[in-house]
C-alpha cells in the first residue's frame, strides 16, 4: 500500500485517498472546446514519473499534487494543490 505524506495530516495509508486525474488533464475554463476535449480525453499515460491530483477523501479533504513513479510506486513529493 502507498504511504502518502499529507502536508496537513502527516503520513497516512493510501486507502484514505482517492486518485482523481493527472495534472495535465485538468480542463481550464478558458479552453476552446477542442482543447478541452483533448485535455479530458487523452493522456500521456506515462510508464515513468507522473504528476497526479489526489484527494484526501477520508481525511482532511485537501486536494494534493502527488509526484509518483507508475512502475515502482515511489513518491517523490506531496504538496497541497
Amino acid at each position, binding site marked *: 500500500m*502507498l504511504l502518502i505524506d499529507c502536508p496537513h495530516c502527516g503520513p497516512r495509508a493510501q486507502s484514505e485517498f482517492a486518485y482523481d486525474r493527472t495534472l495535465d488533464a485538468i480542463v481550464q475554463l478558458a479552453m476552446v472546446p477542442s482543447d478541452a476535449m483533448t485535455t479530458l480525453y487523452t493522456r500521456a*499515460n506515462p510508464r515513468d514519473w507522473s504528476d497526479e491530483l489526489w484527494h484526501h477523501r477520508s481525511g482532511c479533504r485537501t486536494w494534493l499534487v502527488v509526484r509518483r513513479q507508475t512502475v515502482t510506486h515511489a513518491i517523490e513529493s506531496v504538496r497541497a494543490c
Partner: protein
Amino acid sequence: MGRVSRYSALALLRGALTGQRHWDRAWRDPAPRKSYDVLIIGGGGHGLSTAYYLASVHGITNVAVLEKGWIGGGNTGRNTTIVRSNYRQPALHNFFDFALGLWEGMSDELNFNVMFSPRGAMFLGHSDSDMTALAQRGDALRCDGIDAELLTRAQVAALVPLLDMSPSARFPVHGGLTQRRGGTARHDAVAWGYARAADTLGVDIIQNCEITGFTTTGGRVTGVETTRGPIGAGRVGICVAGNSGPVAALAGIELPIEAQTLQAFVTEPVKPMIDTVIMSQSLHCYISQSDKGGIVLGGDPDQFPSYAQRGLPPRLEKTAAEAIALVPALSRLRMVRCWSGTTDMSFDGSPIISALPVDGLYLNGGWCYGGFKATPGSGYAYATLLATGEPHALARPFGLDRFASGATIDEAGVGPMPQLR
C-alpha cells in the same frame, strides 16, 4: 518415425511405443526477416489470434508477431479466464457474442485443447433495483438473439447451494441472470493454440523482441526499430493492451487510455464445489473454480495509474471479504497465489480497434478489465482491419473517433474517469 505436429488420439497412441519423442515443437523460433507485409506488436492472445486470422481468413502469411517477453506472458496469463457476452450495450454484446461463437469452435479449429468450459456465467442481484437492471440487460440480450435467463432466488439457490441464502446474509440474493453459454477457458492454452496454428500457416513468432521506435516516411509507417534490429512493414498493428500508452507514445500519439493494475487470486485446489461462474456487478466480485480445483477470485482494479504488475493488499482484502460473505465455505480455504495485470482502461470502458493518425499504423487496445473473453473476436476483427484497411462491421463502433464525436459506448456511464469504472 517422422516428426508429428497434428495432435490426435492416434498420434498419442503411436507415440506410446517410442516414449512420445516423435512430437514436433509447437512453433518455430525464427530470426526476424528484413520486412513483412504486416507486423503485429504484442504476442498475447489478441496479437496471436490476429496473426492466425490474417493467415487463415485473409491469406496474408508474410506476418510477424513481435513480443518483448514470451508469448502469453502479459495479461493473457493474468486474468480470471471468464468468457461471456452478456453486456447491456448492443455494440458490446453483439461483438462479444461473435467472439463467444468463435470460442465454441476454437479447440477444433486450432487442433489445440483450450479447455473452453461453458459452465454458465451468472450475475447475482442483491436488491430490487439490481433485479430490474438484470431484467433490462437480459431483455436487451434476447432482443439480439443472445441467451439470457433471469433466475429467481430459489433457482439461484439450487444452482449454487453454497451461497449464503440465510436471512442474515451480508449480501442478500434476490435472483440472478445467467448466460449458460458462458464459462471459462484455460488462458495459456489460448495463446499457445493460436501461436501454433499461426506458425503452421507461416507466421513468424518472434519473442524477446521489444519495440523501441517506429520508422515513418512522409507520414506513413514503414517499419519498427526493435531490440533485435530494424524490421520493415507494410502495415503495423499495435496490440499491447496494458502498454498501449508507452507504445503509442513512440509514434507521438496520446490515447484515451490510462493503465491500472487489476489483481486476482486463487485458493488451494479442492473438490468441485462451484460449477458455474458467479459474478456480482454490485460488488465487483468474480468467483469460479478452475478445472484444477482452485477457486479463482477477482475484484476491482487498484484505482490509480500503475504499470507495477503487482496489486495492493486492500483490494485483495475487499474481494476476499465479499467472496466469503457470498460463499461462507470459502473462509476455510487458503489463498495460494495472487497475480496482477496492467489493464488498458479506456475512457468509455469499451475497446479501441482503430486506425491511428499515422498512415499504416493501427491500434487494438483499451480492453479495460475484459479483454480475455474477446480474444478470438478481437483477433478476427483486427485481422479484417489490418488486411483491408476497413473495420469489421461489428468493430465499427470501436473507432478512436468516437471520443470526439460523442458516440462513446459507456456501459458504466462514468466518462473519462477510469478509476470510477
